[in-house]
């Protein structure tokens, strides 16, 4: 896929990030960029800083140094309320175990980001149902997370991440807890919906199947990145 990677087309750029948890250094100058419609895989051994890089880029964690710019704005300049707003409106987050709210049904989980944005309740539920249908999960609308398989929960989680129409989707090991067949199905759907909405997609992964479908791979080693030409 041809992606415009000029400065103007870059939706998000994280440069020279440093981060640590107490004495444990997680990032030592890692960088990451993603353009509209681009799929970037972040790979590397366990403990190489993949998830920390994703969380910093998504504005969940604040790096100790380095810059994250999104659509020309420096995330470091935003206060917590604005960062939270950005995460809810412009970013979608998919984690390894879905992280759905256990007390809510699938449709309520998917509608939740819209309701937090004070959208009309009935319209939110209708939109949520549409997204569940797009992810082949319409039958699950009234099921709670505890009643779903791992693959089903992950498809619902993808619907929830996409429901606000994010410009970038961050997915941390989205197939990590799934068997091969369900993992491939979830991956195919995630790619398809991001392609349809022209959202950039950042995938943290150990799975070579996931890395293979990316336009570009950012390989981390000891908290630093070594850019690799994508498949």
């Amino acid at each position: 896929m041809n992606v415009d990677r000029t400065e103007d087309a870059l939706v998000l750029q994280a440069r020279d990030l440093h981060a640590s948890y107490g004495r444990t250094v997680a990032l030592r100058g890692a960088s990451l960029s993603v353009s509209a419609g681009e799929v970037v895989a972040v790979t590397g051994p366990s403990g190489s800083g993949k998830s920390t890089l994703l969380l910093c880029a998504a504005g969940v964690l604040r790096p100790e140094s380095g810059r994250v710019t999104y659509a020309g704005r420096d995330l470091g300049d935003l206060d917590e309320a604005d960062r939270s707003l950005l995460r809810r409106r412009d970013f979608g987050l998919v984690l390894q175990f879905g992280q759905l709210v256990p007390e809510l049904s699938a449709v309520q989980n998917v509608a939740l980001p819209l309701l937090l944005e004070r959208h009309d309740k009935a319209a939110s539920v209708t939109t949520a149902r549409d997204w569940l249908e797009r992810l082949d999960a319409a039958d699950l609308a009234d099921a709670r997370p505890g009643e779903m398989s791992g693959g089903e929960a992950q498809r619902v989680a993808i619907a929830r991440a996409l429901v606000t129409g994010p410009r970038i989707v961050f997915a941390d090991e989205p197939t990590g807890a799934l068997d091969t067949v369900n993992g491939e199905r979830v991956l195919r759907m995630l790619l398809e919906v991001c392609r349809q909405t022209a959202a950039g997609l950042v995938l943290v992964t150990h799975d070579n199947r996931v890395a293979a479908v990316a336009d570009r791979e950012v390989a981390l080693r000891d908290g630093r990145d070594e850019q690799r030409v994508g498949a």
Partner: protein
Amino acid sequence: MAIGHVLLGILERGPAHGYDLKRSHDQHFPSARPLAFGQVYAALAKLTADGLVEVAETQQGGGPERTTYAITAAGVDSLESWLGTTESAGPYPADELVRKTVTSLLRGADTVAFLQDQRATHLAVMRDLLAQQASAQNAAAAIAIDHTISHLDADLRWLETAAERVAADRTATA
């Protein structure tokens, strides 16, 4: 021409007799079948005929004649060309991959760069196979593709581990 290139890799470190080449080969590839002397001399004859190796010295002592072989400039070019070319991600490329990686390491070449290039080659093939699998008409077609994908996945994991070990080794000896 895998054995020939492995011999060139050994000869690049200095001229050697056929016996030394066999011993060195068997030492570097303990899991491979030991080379027969006939294989070594057949490979040397072909390398000599191709101008990649030359006779450096022939000793005529009390025992049998002992010939020392040396790599030529064309031999170094051929070795570099072999090491610089990624293997096709075919059904059984692992043996050649291991030979190439070990020879590259012994030579002090940029093995990590080679392993990364090889990873890109494997990922490109895997990407095509995943696309084929998405449109597979039935389970039989899908599982035939799974078989190849699984082998590629195993190779990719080996490539990652090899790169890790090379990097760790480099850090330890730095």
